[in-house]
């Protein structure tokens, strides 16, 4: 299992692995926001937590279609399915690798982009914490979407259509926690709900992902 994780990380960091693309996308989306809504710092600081959450979510989404498709195309998935590793473990590791290469960098970059959007000082820690707790759910749900569409030639757009509705609860609680944190309100409930969603998806969704992957492999 460690070997698969290490291989996926290595592949992501090597040339053409696509590491950093999500991060660059996150940066660009954030920079575009003031151009679209205007430069008033009061407005920007109000919408900053939500915009940053949405940006992180879209950056996550962007890298999902590579998550399993590359291994599908070169036959690695067939071979992994016949290996001693259960497919549930394979999809969990894939999601973990996706989180380390996409989710974690987004979490770390978010405060810097928060400065660009005049995020209130109180909001920084809550933004980071909510993203840290919420992005694993995004990776796991995304892996399910990727497993659903892996056999399709042009699955990218369909993948977004399937995954975005599934992202709704995570986005609502995550952005709400960050927003409440920024204005100094109590973040207890949304943070608990967010943590609950992450825990439940990490524990249960790999079974669904493995099941649909098995269907797609046959």
């Amino acid at each position: 299992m460690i070997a698969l994780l290490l291989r996926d990380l290595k592949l992501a960091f090597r040339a053409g692995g696509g590491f950093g693309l999500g991060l660059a996308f996150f940066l660009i989306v954030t920079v575009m926001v003031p151009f679209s809504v205007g430069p008033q710092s009061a407005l920007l600081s109000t919408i900053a937590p939500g915009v940053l959450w949405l940006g992180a979510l879209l950056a996550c989404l962007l890298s999902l279609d590579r998550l399993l498709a590359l291994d599908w195309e070169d036959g690695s998935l067939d071979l992994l399915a016949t290996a001693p590793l259960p497919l549930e473990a394979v999809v969990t590791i894939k999601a973990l690798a996706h989180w380390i290469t996409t989710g974690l960098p987004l979490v770390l970059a978010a405060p810097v982009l928060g400065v660009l959007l005049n995020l209130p000082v109180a909001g920084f820690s809550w933004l980071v914490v909510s993203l840290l707790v919420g992005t694993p759910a995004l990776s796991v749900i995304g892996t399910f979407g990727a497993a659903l569409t892996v056999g399709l030639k042009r699955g990218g757009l369909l993948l977004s259509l399937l995954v975005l509705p599934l992202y709704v609860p995570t986005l609502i609680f995550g952005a709400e926690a960050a927003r409440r944190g920024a204005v100094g309100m109590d973040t207890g409930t949304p943070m608990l709900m967010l943590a609950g969603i992450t825990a439940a998806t990490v524990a249960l969704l790999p079974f669904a992902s493995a099941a649909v992957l098995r269907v797609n492999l046959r």
Partner: protein
Amino acid sequence: MTLTVTDLSIARGGIPVLQGLGFDLRPGTALVVRGPNGIGKTTLLRTLAGLQPPLSGHITGAEDTIAYAGHSDGIKPTLTVTENLTFWASVFGTAEIRPALEAFELNDLATRHAGNLSAGQKRRLGLSRLLVTGRPIWVLDEPTVSLDVSAVAMFATAVRAHLSQGGCALIATHIDLGLDAAVLDVGPFRAKPRPVTDFDGDFL
């Protein structure tokens, strides 16, 4: 470990392709699968490897014993030859990749990125993966595609060595590997279509 197949029927895309297939594959023996294109050889091998369920029939002795090699090798172009092999070795829980490199004369290429290999060299790397799986039953789908004469000989030697160690191999191929292998012609097992009037639960 003997692989036993009895009264096996398989389907591709929901359409039955082969039916009533049965054979034994004993340790130390090889079986060459022949048949016209599109008859379902690949489907048969994928079914044996456990990638798809059979329509009916039984396969015994296939649990965690099969090393499958299909049309694509699962090679990552940005990893070196050694890294590719080491990965599969650790997935299958074996440590030694030296013998695999030697058997397919990959020693000189060990530090090269797999993306820089020729098609034949890639294929050799793909086949050397079989040696690091440590599994007794090799199920190979057209293993000699894009191999030159000397590489085919390398492959045949590797298969012979595997058989002499008590392993066995099921190979779908059209070329003569010079192996002492039985031939399974799947042509006669082509599935007969059910009558059109039979409009029941499974449509076909």
